[in-house]
């Protein structure tokens, strides 16, 4: 390290307030007499002030967006771990373990049958969608927060009003922009993506609308239009009202 480089580092440490009192005093005295070093101090201050002009507060919706993206990733990770868990247990066990497993499996089949029957009987809209692609699941999860429509809404007369700010997430390898709209007494989430939303296993095609499909996930109705961009509307309304609601919303 030559003298010039050492002076640079000493001056940097002096400006950062990291020298001991004796060295600081020596530099203070030196600066009174050395025009070259004083210019270096002045330029350092100017550069720092200039760089600080670039500070800008984070956008208000960014924390929500990040938190939601992490929640979606956590849900995906939990599902993957459940699948991996099954894979590990599928290694060939001992005879006793196999016997226990057959009994548990039998009980599981009975329990699953009971649960499936209850789901079909109790869930609004009848059948629950089966295998749900990650992108659709992310939209449905986001739309879970929407309250049910109030009784006195008149969507045919109301103009849609955006609620909150748009949220962008990545799910299933596609970027999705989520917007919440209020129309009369009903609210709906409109998800827009540059890639088509995959059709869940039990979704139904919408006749006369090309690649459009509709599905039901618990209390949520889903209505998807796949075109140059893909729009997925999710709302806690009966299936019969969903297409009419989607037609009144700004989709793209």
């Amino acid at each position, binding site marked *: 390290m030559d003298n010039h480089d050492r002076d640079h*580092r000493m001056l940097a440490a002096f400006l*950062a307030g990291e020298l001991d009192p004796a060295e600081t005093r020596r530099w203070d005295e030196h600066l009174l007499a050395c025009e070259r070093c004083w210019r*270096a101090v002045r330029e*350092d201050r100017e*550069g720092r002030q200039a*760089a600080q*002009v670039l500070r800008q507060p984070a956008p208000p919706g960014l*924390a929500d967006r990040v938190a939601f993206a992490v929640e979606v990733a956590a849900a995906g990770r939990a599902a993957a771990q459940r699948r991996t868990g099954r894979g590990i247990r599928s290694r060939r066990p001992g005879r006793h373990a196999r016997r226990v497993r057959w009994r548990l499996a039998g009980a599981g089949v009975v329990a699953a049958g009971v649960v499936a029957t209850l789901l079909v009987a109790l869930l609004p809209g009848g059948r629950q969608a089966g295998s749900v692609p990650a992108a659709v699941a992310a939209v449905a999860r986001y739309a879970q927060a929407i309250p049910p429509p109030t009784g006195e809404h008149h969507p045919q007369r109301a103009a849609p009003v955006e609620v909150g700010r748009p949220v*962008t997430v990545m799910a299933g390898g596609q970027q999705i922009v989520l917007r919440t709209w209020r129309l009369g007494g009903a609210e709906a989430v409109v998800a827009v993506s540059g890639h088509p939303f995959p059709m869940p296993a039990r979704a139904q095609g919408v006749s006369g609308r090309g690649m459009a499909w509709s599905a039901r996930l618990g209390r949520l109705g889903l209505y998807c239009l796949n075109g140059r961009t893909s729009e997925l509307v999710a709302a806690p309304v009966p299936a019969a009202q969903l297409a009419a609601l989607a037609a009144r919303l700004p989709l793209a």
Partner: protein
Amino acid sequence: MGADHRAFLQATLPHLDAVWQVARQAAAGGQDPEDLVQETYLRAYAGFGSFRGGNARAWLAAICLNVARSQARRRRRRPWEVPGPALLDVLPWSRADGGESTADVADVVIAGLDAEEVSRCLALLPEPQRVCIVLVDVAGYTAREAAETLGCPRGTVLARVHRGRRKLAQLLAEAGVSHGQP
């Protein structure tokens, strides 16, 4: 879904503003800084199990810089290229914290143009100096945190910041922009 993502968010969300400052300057080739922040947090969450409870701010900044670099390589564009139009949104009326909105219009316009010029000059600095200035002066990291982020001695960070500030001031002076006190 367990409690790990809640622990992760609790440990990292307080540093969102610092990551945002880094992402705004590191986003390259038309990359959206908000996307970069989101990708940073998703990568950090994926690696949270191996995070040993050090300085989360420094850890997040290192991930953000790595993500920006790898995405810039993928796009085959120059890293640290700051898009001009995005810089005009530093205008005071865009402050989310309800900052001054009564500033004189001429001052506001000049401030916006200054920010654009500062960003242009910052982009001309060698990358090591530029990164150190972004971390310390723009994002508010301490020299120790910046050193941890970059994996280099603290004295090196201080020297890079000093050289970078001086060069930045000289470039701005050549461009006719001054930020110093008389």
